[in-house]
């Protein structure tokens, strides 16, 4: 069995597997046409109505200091919305914590199936586990310094968890290969890179040069992750 690509087999999902049955099905759509005219816009209209009548997913709680301001070294965060920065810091913290677990699951995949030429070594994956964890630890420290509670699941953290749920599911599924799992890691890294960049800019807008610098360093590390994952996937595809 190949550990880099799917092999030829008895996949039954396409119509070509059952040409006669499919022909019958198509014929049926003429005899039994849709009972009502229209298209998918009806679904879109309902989405609009619900969106207008729904409450937000959640909120960012006030600072734990109880003084009503998120601060560093006694100075209030600048910028249009300090809450936005806290929301996005909470998002990144949760993502990096989940990222640690995601790469641990990738390690299991490696341990089960082995690597492939041009793919990651065990140490490569282990290094990413350590990087993700250190980013999580750094964000915990930053949020605490700002007077925020690092254990809060902020709205953006919650939504990122919903988005990345499928990525974990691909990697922890015992049937997937290392390259298939790396595709999931790629989606995570693409998002991670963009979000660290956004955090860096938000920190600068908030007048937090030191924070922006720390986020820039994290971004540089994530850029190497992205480049590595891209390279490993390319190698698995013989590119």
């Amino acid at each position, binding site marked *: 069995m190949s550990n880099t690509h799917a092999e030829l087999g008895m996949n039954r999902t396409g119509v070509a597997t059952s040409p006669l049955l499919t022909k019958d099905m198509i014929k049926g759509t003429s005899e039994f046409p849709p009972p009502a005219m229209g298209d998918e816009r009806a679904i879109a209209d309902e989405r609009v109505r*619900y969106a207008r*009548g*729904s*409450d*937000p*997913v*959640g*909120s960012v709680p006030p600072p734990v200091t109880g003084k009503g301001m998120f601060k560093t070294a006694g100075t209030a965060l600048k910028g249009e919305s300090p809450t936005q920065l806290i929301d996005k810091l909470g998002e990144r913290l*949760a993502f990096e*914590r*989940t*990222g*640690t*677990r*995601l*790469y*641990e*699951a990738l*390690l*299991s995949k490696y*341990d089960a*199936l*082995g*690597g*492939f030429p041009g*793919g990651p*070594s*065990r140490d490569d*994956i*282990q290094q990413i*586990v*350590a990087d993700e*964890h*250190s980013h*999580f*630890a750094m964000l*915990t420290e930053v949020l605490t310094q700002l007077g925020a509670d*690092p*254990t*809060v*699941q*902020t*709205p953006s953290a*919650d*939504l990122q*968890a*919903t988005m990345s*749920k499928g990525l*974990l*599911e*691909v990697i*922890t*599924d*015992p049937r997937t290969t290392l390259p298939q799992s790396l595709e999931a890691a790629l989606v995570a890294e693409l998002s991670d890179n963009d979000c660290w960049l956004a955090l860096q800019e938000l920190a600068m807008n908030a007048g937090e040069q030191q924070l922006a610098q720390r986020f820039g360093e994290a971004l540089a590390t994530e850029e190497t992750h992205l480049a590595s994952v891209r390279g490993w996937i390319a190698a698995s595809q013989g590119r």
Partner: protein
Amino acid sequence: MTIDLLRDKGTSLDNQRFTWKELAQPTYSKLDDDAFTRVRVILMNGIENEALRFGHACARMNRELQLHLARVRRIEQHQATLVNWLNPPDQSPLETTIGYEQVAIEVTAAIALKEPNPYLAQVYRFGLLEDFDHMYRYSALMDRVEGKDANNLLQSYTDILPGRPTAVEHRDPCDELRIPYDRATAQLITKLHANTLMAGEHQTHDYYMNIGPTYPDPTGRQLYAEIASIEEQHVTQYESIIDASESWLEKWLLHEATEVYNYYSCVQSESNRRIKAVWERFLDYELGQLRYVADLFEMFEKRDAAEVLGDGKLPAPIEYVSHRDFVRETLRNEVHLTAVGTEFVPFDSQPEGSLSQSYREQMNAEGSPSERVARGYSWAPGGELSQQKPRTAPQAVLPNQPSN
């Protein structure tokens, strides 16, 4: 608000109506609403599903009641839907699982504290410590596979600590039956308690059976299988404490009274105004259904509904609060117990070579998922990674590792 089970008419069945949009109305917020809002939603969905389950079983055995049951069941189907659809879509199945276990801990504790029958109170404390352990195992799964903190859902009301180890909860069916209450002498509150917990546990079982196979991680998949098996035991336990000599109509009447009692409890404690309005509406619906069934009971059985419902006064509501002190005290005093027949005895005093022991050994013969998932696990705010220094991942210990 005073409820009179014998006199209140509630909303008549003809006026208990819905639209599809009402059934799928805006949800509560996983992040901002109080954890007990989720607890109430999960329990009430279980209560409504029990009404449906009972209604179908009853219909299969009672031709003359079938149309009456179908009328009431149709309404309960839609009540169940509306309530269950209050769960938000950003709440993953595992997060909802944490909510289910919080129900099992806090509601069981509230009931155990108020149960007047001392034997049944012990039955509840026994079940409580098992569900308490399930919380610990699922929290470890969430933390160690997904990197998420179960306390985001629990909001610090409920502990994440080991209870009676799930691995030793597996028992032979002969050790799962308990002594039932006596329908002629038991207080109404005893009957309402038993019906409430039976409903909650049955729903928990069914939920795990549905979502378990959607979990991809092998340990998580096994853990759902293992805990679903315990929930089946719990349903067996809780249905056995209900007097089997109650007539079908008597049971139906008690189901309706249980629904009234639970919606009443929800109304008393709900902090979300929109959801409180749902509980108020359904309390009126249930009073209407109770009236309808009480009339059937009196017509078919030629007995006064007061024989079952007493003076019609509702007992004090279920308290939706943290029961940390009570649970910990129970943990200290009773974690070492197991069941032999209908009695609770220290684990080390059960007979050697018992059916439960053989069964447990068989089920755990290839390893225990509940032990594996939580080995060395200690909850900390933000998850166990927050307590560890930046690190390297643990080395796999399996032999024959392929290399690059």
